[in-house]
């Protein structure tokens, strides 16, 4: 029951002709004179919240740079030092010549941050999900997951060849029904996210994890969009809801709050370390460059003491959410639940026009469209940064008001 219509057979054997409908959609959109939303170039980056795009100074409101660590002076110093001391890259796999002192220190920082026994660093967040899920859930096992899960989760499921059983977004009862129907004796993994990045809503992890445990399932939670920000120590939604001890595997990324690139898994499972030898996306790729793990480790340690920044980020999220609601925009959540505020557009055409209008005002947000979005929605996704000032958030609201009225999304 594939939802993609069967493509017309390629007359000349061109394997790329299956993308013709997408090429057509894109050309139609660009023919209307709209700037290509998926081809923006940041000519210069001035700070975590400002860049030059198309020659214009632009407020960045769609970068997931939640804690503004990309230009933190301590983080930059650590990176420069590692670059000088250890070189530009490792040229090797973690299990061969690619584990440097910095990789161990980065994993130490993660173990301390999460207060867990084991940490494993991957070259990207995508690979962390791909690697862990495909390695622990194989043929004959069952993965029960939220239908709105990230692409890296679905790809991990497909790679491991487990039976994949999705349930309706954040629907506790639908999840339980599926767990109950899994054949006796089969291995079970429940995969959840703390914050879902499209609408910025939070999962009812407390209830869901209790049910998963009742049915004997292991639990993996992707906390990519909550690390450093949600929970008393910034460990994520599972910490906030008091169930982090029942999570078997937490997946995270360095490309959001941590401010660089890379992914990880932390766990208390006593056999966790064997995964280093059997997890293909960990083994068969080069490890992160020394400068990257040095910046990540420094950033993670600073995030442990980021309570003031976290408080300001919440204020920003609430201010933007309330301002946009008051202007008459339809948002992904009725209350602010995370640092993501998703503005729902009536359709792709007006979404793209609005995106362009905002860019010309000097504001960058993410344009998210099907199939990446739930319910085929077109979204203008805003992600706030702890470094956004109150004045910047107010300026953003002014830009949304002008662009929204010009495009006719609000009255």
């Amino acid at each position: 029951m594939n939802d993609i219509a069967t493509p017309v057979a390629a007359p000349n054997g061109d394997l790329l002709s299956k993308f013709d409908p997408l090429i057509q959609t894109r050309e139609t959109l660009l023919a209307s004179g709209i700037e290509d939303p998926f081809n923006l170039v940041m000519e210069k980056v001035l700070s975590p919240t400002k860049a030059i795009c198309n020659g214009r100074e632009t407020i960045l409101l769609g970068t997931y740079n939640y804690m503004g660590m990309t230009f933190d002076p301590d983080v930059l110093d650590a990176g420069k030092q590692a670059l000088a001391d250890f070189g530009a890259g490792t040229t090797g796999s973690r299990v061969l010549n690619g584990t440097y002192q910095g990789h161990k220190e980065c994993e130490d920082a993660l173990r301390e941050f999460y207060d867990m026994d084991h940490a494993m660093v991957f070259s990207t967040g995508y690979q962390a999900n791909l690697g862990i899920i495909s390695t622990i859930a194989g043929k004959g096992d069952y993965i029960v997951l939220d239908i709105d899960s990230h692409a890296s989760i679905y790809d991990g499921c497909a790679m491991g060849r487990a039976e994949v059983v999705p349930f309706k977004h954040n629907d506790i009862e639908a999840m339980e029904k599926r767990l109950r129907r899994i054949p006796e004796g089969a291995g079970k993994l429940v995969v959840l996210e703390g914050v879902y990045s499209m609408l910025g809503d939070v999962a009812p992890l407390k209830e869901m994890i209790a049910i998963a445990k009742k049915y004997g399932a292991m639990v993996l939670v992707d906390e990519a969009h909550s690390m450093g920000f949600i929970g008393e120590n910034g460990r994520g939604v599972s910490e906030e809801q008091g169930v982090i001890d029942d999570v078997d595997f937490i997946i995270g990324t360095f490309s959001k709050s941590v401010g660089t690139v890379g992914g990880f898994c932390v766990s208390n499972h006593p056999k966790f370390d064997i995964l280093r030898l059997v997890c293909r996306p960990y083994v068969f790729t080069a490890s992160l460059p020394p400068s990257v793990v040095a910046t990540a480790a420094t950033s993670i340690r600073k995030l442990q003491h980021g309570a003031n920044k976290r408080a300001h980020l919440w204020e920003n999220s609430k201010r933007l959410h309330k301002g946009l609601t008051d202007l008459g925009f339809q948002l992904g959540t009725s209350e602010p639940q995370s640092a993501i505020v998703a503005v729902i557009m009536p359709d792709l055409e007006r979404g793209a026009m609005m995106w362009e209008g905002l860019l010309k005002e000097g504001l960058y947000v993410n344009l998210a469209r099907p199939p990446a979005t739930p319910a085929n929605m077109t979204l203008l996704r805003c992600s706030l940064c702890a470094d956004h000032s109150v004045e910047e958030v107010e300026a953003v609201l002014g830009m949304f008001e002008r662009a929204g009225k010009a495009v006719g999304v609000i009255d």
Partner: protein
Amino acid sequence: MTEAEVDERIRGLIEPFNKKGIDIAPGTTFANDLEFDSLTVMDFVAEIEDEFDIIISMNQQADIENYGQLVSAVHKLQDS
């Protein structure tokens, strides 16, 4: 449950999803004839799963393109 009984129950379930009132035959495809998008597929599959108390995993869904294949797959699943 016989395959005919399974067929009858699925026919009842598919009705609210068959917005254009297409005639359902074994060869009727979900993507092309019924124009189901991914959301509709999810809701429709959930209805069938609840009705028959079965799981139709995404792996199994990938092999089901038309109505006849669905009836036959559900018949096998609820029997096992």
